[in-house]
């Protein structure tokens, strides 16, 4: 395979991968953030302490976390077909990716939010703040650097999952590596997809670390 043959394939594969990962990240954020915050808020001694709700969310998150992604994806095929109309292609892959990433990110959110000093929560309650105020003005802003770090980890995990989704016809770089690199023994092409993946992962990690550093530096600024 010449570079001219590889290039359009790699370009399309990268676009498909970013498309899948991008949408799945958005859903992970929308679904995982509230779940993670709820896991903390409903815990004992917290503003919305509720053992039943806490256990139920915990169990759901654990089930989602313990299923290997490839199995989750296959198990979700009927659901995916119901939502998207098909079980193949990048759009179809977004469904299992999002569902796999939500509990993953939720646990990271939980850890980040739990780290926030309880004294701050108490101070805001003492000045008359509601639980909403506590979440919006204390928990999320104080946990922001850890949340960004968690999101970075989630995106990188999603890039890995998306390659697996390729095995079940998801499209993107994973499908390319399998169909061209593995099944047709195009070692050069396999290498090229691996390089592209490394570049994407590194870029995401650097971007995430950069934002975290910026947030930390802001807290040290004298203004």
């Amino acid at each position: 395979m010449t570079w001219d043959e590889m290039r359009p394939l790699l370009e399309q594969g990268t676009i498909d991968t970013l498309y899948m990962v991008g949408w799945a990240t958005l859903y992970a954020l929308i679904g995982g953030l509230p779940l993670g915050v709820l896991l903390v808020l409903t815990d004992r001694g917290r503003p919305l302490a509720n053992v039943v709700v806490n256990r139920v969310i915990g169990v759901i998150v654990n089930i989602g976390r313990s299923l290997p992604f490839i199995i989750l994806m296959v198990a979700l095929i009927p659901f995916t077909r119901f939502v998207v109309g098909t079980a193949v292609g990048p759009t179809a892959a977004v469904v299992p990716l999002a569902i796999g990433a939500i509990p993953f990110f939720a646990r990271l959110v939980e850890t980040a939010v739990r780290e926030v000093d309880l004294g701050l929560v108490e101070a805001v309650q003492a000045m008359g703040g509601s639980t909403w105020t506590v979440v919006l003005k204390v928990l999320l802003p104080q946990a922001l650097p850890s949340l960004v770090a968690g999101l970075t980890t989630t995106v990188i995990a999603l890039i890995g999952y998306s390659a697996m989704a390729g095995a079940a016809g998801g499209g993107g770089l994973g499908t390319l590596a399998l169909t061209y690199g593995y099944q047709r023994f195009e070692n050069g092409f396999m290498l090229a997809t691996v390089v592209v993946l490394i570049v994407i992962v590194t870029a995401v990690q650097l971007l995430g670390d950069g934002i975290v550093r910026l947030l930390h530096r802001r807290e040290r600024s004298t203004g």
Partner: protein
Amino acid sequence: MITISDLTKVYRARGRDVTALDGVSLHVEPGEVHGVIGRSGAGKSTLIRCVNQLERPTSGTVTVEGRDLTALAGKGNRAGRPLRRARGGIGMIFQHFNLLSSRTAQGNVELPLEIQGLGRRERARKALELLDLVGLADRARAHPAQLSGGQKQRVGIARALAGDPKVLLSDEATSALDPETTGSVLRLLRDLNRQLGLTVLLITHEMDVVKTVCDSASLMEDGRLTESGRVDDLLATPGSRLAHALFPLGAADRGPDRTVVDLTFHGEAAGAPVISRLARVHGLDVSIVGATVETVGTRQIGRMRIELPGPAEKNAAPLAFLRDQGLTVELPGEEPR
């Protein structure tokens, strides 16, 4: 201003009941600084957190500015709107300051104003005004990580004042500070108390805090208030452990052929030449073992330990003379009489 009646708090920990507060009653007058002192674990923290219902008491009532907060709190842990509004009118400062590291000093003071729903302009104006009041106008844009402990507590105080409170609760506010900074923060609290007529309820384990700022004080032990009253009255009470703790004279070295006497001078008696009169009238050799003078609020209080020759039974007349002079007379190590 603050009335606590028969407050009880029982925790359930590992199947056992732990009584943190055991029938505590306390009244703090408007404009007064009241200190609750006690060892850690005595229940002070639980007590102050019950005042604004951060902690729900098991029984008893707390009334602030005539409003029964225990009734507002209702059942469960969530604070309804009436309680939240009431809390907005009670300032609170903390041992570890509890400032948001993600916000500047000004941003931290603006937080309660945001909760009150003030507009951006109004918030900034008021926050800067409050920072100026606590002497930090020039550090408004610094983040907490940039401030010293004393400066952080000043931001904490400015933030506590944002709701124009009549009552300020102070939860070991100076315990994390060095002695010098403690002094300046206490002076600030004293000034605010006088300027704004702020009623202050503070808890501490440092005697110096009570000595420096408190009009009245209570001693807390095992979930009960064992002594309570105005600091100068407590000092005039023979056998008051709070007075002993405030102005310690150390352990008495007693003997069979001498009488050790602890005297407390206050009010009129402070100026009278009592000791020389005692020596002249009763022809006694009085030796002074130790003495201390302190200013409590605006009054001078002196304590002195003297030794008289002969056992206590033979010194009945001199002791009576000392009592007649308006002094508080105690024989250390013996039952208070």
